[in-house]
């Protein structure tokens, strides 16, 4: 049932990387529980703009849970407390009238805060650029079904491919490790015949880039899989480890 609620928001405000940042408190009233979390922030931003104040900077794009642009830490939980939900798909009906909500950016050395809740997740792109692709000679389109893939393998590859690159796994990890993200991307290609050809090179390059970007080391805390909006499992991390050892010890790549 639709109802309107009033909330107290403690929002992290930080004017660029030099600024130390602080929480500021805002009251929002008459928020429809049908709204999404980001729409609620839109309402607040409208009020701030009308008052001549700086609106809160946050990322979003699709607002339907598929692009991976949105994401903040809400009351200590990346993307909020609902399981398998992005922040844009988190609805205000999950909050109660009078709640106080703390909103802060994803925090990691590899993710610099650009402004307020907006962080630079370019490190994830760097990891993808280092090996999260397959090289295909552009030519005539191949025949459909020329490369057989079993249904079961396709399912597992597609489960891994669901990763939207939002970075919540990094935000949730006590070590700020990006292993869940990297493992999802390595797994989805390593499982498929098209991706197997470059599997060794890919595993080495992506792990190396991940390390160079300043992410932490995985210590199997499992917070990532609990917070991932796409339900990516740490089984993928075990697969990444296998791929990496295979490549490191048994392939010709260094």
């Amino acid at each position: 049932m639709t109802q309107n609620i009033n909330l107290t928001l403690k929002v992290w405000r930080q004017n660029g990387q030099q600024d130390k940042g602080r929480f500021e408190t805002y009251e929002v009233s008459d928020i429809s529980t049908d709204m999404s979390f980001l729409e609620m922030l839109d309402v607040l931003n409208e009020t701030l703009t009308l008052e001549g104040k700086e609106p809160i900077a946050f990322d979003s794009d699709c607002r339907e849970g598929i692009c991976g642009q949105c994401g903040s830490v809400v009351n200590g939980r990346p993307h909020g407390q609902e399981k398998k939900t992005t922040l844009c798909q988190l609805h205000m009906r999950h909050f109660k009238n009078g709640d106080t909500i703390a909103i802060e950016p994803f925090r990691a050395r590899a993710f610099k805060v650009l402004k307020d809740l907006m962080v630079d997740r370019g490190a994830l792109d760097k990891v993808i650029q280092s090996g999260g692709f397959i090289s295909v000679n552009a030519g005539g389109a191949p025949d459909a079904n020329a490369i057989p893939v079993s249904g079961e393998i396709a399912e597992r590859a597609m489960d891994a491919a669901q990763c939207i690159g939002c970075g919540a796994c990094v935000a949730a990890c006590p070590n700020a490790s990006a292993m869940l993200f990297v493992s999802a991307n390595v797994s989805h290609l390593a499982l498929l015949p098209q991706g197997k050809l470059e599997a060794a090179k890919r595993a080495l390059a992506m792990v190396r880039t991940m390390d160079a970007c300043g992410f932490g080391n995985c210590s199997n805390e499992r917070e990532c899989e609990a917070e991932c909006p796409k339900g990516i499992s740490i089984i993928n991390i075990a697969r990444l480890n296998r791929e990496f050892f295979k490549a490191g010890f048994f392939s010709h790549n260094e």
Partner: protein
Amino acid sequence: MNWLINTLGSSVGKKLMMSITGFVFILFLIGHLIGNLTIYVGPDAFNAYAGHLQSLKPALRLMESGLIFFAIVHIFTGLILFYQNFKARPNRYEVNKQAGGRTLGSATMPYTGLIILAFVIFHLFDFTFVDKTGRTVYDIVAASFSNPVYVFLYIASVFIVGIHVSHGFWSAFQTIGINHPKYMPTIQTAGLLFSLIVAIGFGFIPLFISLIS
């Protein structure tokens, strides 16, 4: 050799070293516990077991050197990981909440690890590097456990070992890439059972000795 340094020096490689050395210590704990069980048979059986170990000199020395080597690798790699992971998040969260992945064991690995290191050193100075002339190993052990402070220290320490192993056990499998829905639940249950067996199995000995003497 470059490939080896690149592989083992990476984040995943360091975890591999933690895992393999961790497996060695799990095996060591099993062996140590089985050996200790002779204490329940009586002082003579225990002394005979200790004497038998000593008579295996070359093999024993080899095992000891191996354990020291693995301990050094485990400790140094662990400290590097601890430091790097601490540095990976320079600005901490204001509000911290967990989603249910973390456990008491996983959240305290570096701390329980360091406590275990201190305990092992203390334990070696207490029982191994002592003057054994005129006393049997059992005498030394019984003398130690006549002091309630020692009894408490030992029991507390082996419980901390149990906490460390409760995460380390399944984690070691996950790290070397062994994780499948078919058997991961079994590995996790086995890990919890094993940590209980370690805590209770070792922890009961000081109590037993202090009670019978």
